[in-house]
């Protein structure tokens, strides 16, 4: 187990290192840098002025030197300065993390609460009208773009309540924050709940064909006991994987949803930073997302061992 963990940590570090090179090189391919944007915005066409801005921001130095400075700073917890706001990048990023984290957790909660029970019901009532309805519902969850769903929710709320529930000021208190985040979380979570439902259904169907389920039934165990105690527990393993993967990948859904609902989270900030070519922000945010993804993948693998004692990671 010990050497498995060491190998695993090394692999995670390698992946993150590779991602840091990939993102750094990709951003330097972008046609036009922040100096161009600032010069254009100020209406200055003087190349000297542009060169001065590029020098101030360190964009004139060799790319390897720029990379070394970024990675060196990152290991010390120094994320550099944001080009646009000229404030330390950490001060820009840190306050946005809790907002996106809360939104992700709520979306995940929503998707599990809906996805797992509906998946079980759909499997237990296979090929009934209810099953067909739930399957079509889950497929539509995978088909609706979340930004459109968000826009529809906004439209409906304008129509019925006359207001738009978007994030304008800092919410006062826990309840108001939950109220503001609940709708966007449901919008993001709808897609994940569809995925979780489909997987729970197919996993349940596979387990319910096993001999031990027949044995349990022949011993006179009740339907509820067979479905939930015997079948669901064993069907949950692949479901846990998808919940874990979704937890990390919900960030993709957050990008558009935070934009629609005007939520000042990490994902919307990434889009803004990309538009402004604010390299320090984009690089660090991408690394943050990649870090969350590899960490969650690792945690999911560890959760396997707890859920299924037959799984042991060999040294």
């Amino acid at each position, binding site marked *: 187990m010990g050497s498995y963990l060491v190998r695993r940590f090394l692999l995670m570090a390698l*992946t993150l290192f590779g991602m840091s090179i990939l*993102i750094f090189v990709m*951003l330097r391919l972008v046609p036009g840098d922040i100096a161009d944007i600032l010069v254009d915005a100020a209406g200055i066409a003087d190349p000297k002025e542009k060169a001065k801005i590029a020098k101030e921001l360190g964009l004139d130095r060799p790319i390897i030197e720029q990379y070394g400075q970024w990675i060196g700073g990152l290991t010390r917890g120094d994320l550099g300065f944001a080009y646009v706001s000229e404030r330390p990048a950490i001060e820009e990023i840190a306050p946005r993390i809790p907002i996106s984290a809360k939104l992700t957790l709520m979306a995940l909660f929503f998707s599990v609460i809906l996805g797992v029970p509906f998946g079980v019901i759909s499997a237990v009532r296979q090929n009934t009208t209810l099953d067909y309805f739930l399957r079509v519902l889950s497929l539509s969850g995978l088909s609706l*773009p979340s930004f459109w769903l968000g826009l529809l929710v906004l*439209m409906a709320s304008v129509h019925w309540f006359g207001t738009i529930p978007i994030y304008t000021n800092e919410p006062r208190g826990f309840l108001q924050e939950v109220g503001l985040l609940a709708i966007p979380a449901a919008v993001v979570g709808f897609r994940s709940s569809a995925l979780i439902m489909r997987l729970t259904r*197919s996993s349940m169907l596979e387990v319910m064909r096993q001999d031990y389920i027949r044995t349990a039934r022949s011993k006179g165990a009740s339907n509820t006991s067979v479905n939930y105690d015997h079948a669901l527990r064993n069907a949950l393993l692949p479901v846990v994987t998808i919940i874990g993967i979704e937890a990390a990948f919900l960030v993709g859904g957050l*990008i558009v949803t935070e934009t629609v609902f005007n939520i000042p989270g990490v994902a919307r900030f990434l*889009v803004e930073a990309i538009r402004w070519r604010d390299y320090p922000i*984009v690089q660090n945010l991408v690394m943050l997302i990649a870090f969350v993804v590899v960490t969650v993948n690792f945690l999911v693998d560890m959760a396997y061992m707890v859920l299924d004692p037959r799984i042991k990671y060999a040294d």
Partner: protein
Amino acid sequence: MAIIDHEAELHRAGANITGLRSQLVFTARRYPLGAIGAIIVLTFVFTAVFANFIAPFDPTSTDSKSSLARPGSVFWLGADFMGRDMFSRIVYGARISLAVGLGATLTGGILGVSIGLMSGYLGGGFDLLMQRLMDIMQSLPLLVMALVMAAALGPSLENTIIAIAIPLVPSVARVVRSSTLSLREQPFVEAARAVGMGELRIAVRHVLPNTLAPLIVLGTAQLGSAILVEASLSFLGLGIPEPYPSWGRMLSESAAEYVRTAPWLVIFPGVAISMTVFGTNLLGDALRDILDPRQRS
């Protein structure tokens, strides 16, 4: 004792069906949801191909007098703030979605198949290197990766296709690699080698065709994802540039401002995206049931 009526059973399984038409009817009855999906996808492809015959107006021609016209007999689905006919724009938008969806899925598929086949077949250092590269690419969600790539490449139709295709590569490569790993130990590969066939020919002629079933299933799912990602990128202003009518950008243009005053600008492009992706998902599920019986739901 149960009596099995062999004739009836054979009839039920479609053994006596001849001719393309009756085969299609039989398959459609057996997979009704898949048939609906196929009809939606065919309608989408038909609309995209024949857009210039179907659309009553030029999708880019503006007319200030018809700005924000309500849906009616002239503008069936209304007009946008520049007076452009929404129906024509949605019809032409199908072309963009089809071009990006197919382009990205095929490009990602060809790259993924090449990498996966070589990885599984060659093994060793190449495989190790490619697997780590795939790990790196999979450490970002599809949309985030596509977003960064789209920004790096700049807005254009071709660049949007590439930006979506690259993040699709790892899953194709992984599927092909794992199939190749098990296939290369099979007796028929050994037999091909024994009769003196070259390794490249074995890989392409014998191993590759056997990985096709899961690939088609994955490809259909990726087609839906690619259409959704294109819509999201264009919605964020980092996808298809003007003057192409993209469904995603139609929503970004109309989003906040017209939610109250012109809801048709928000509803119809979204319906187009959702219906198309819904169709590909239904078709994908049916194809999985037909081609990959182990995963049958």
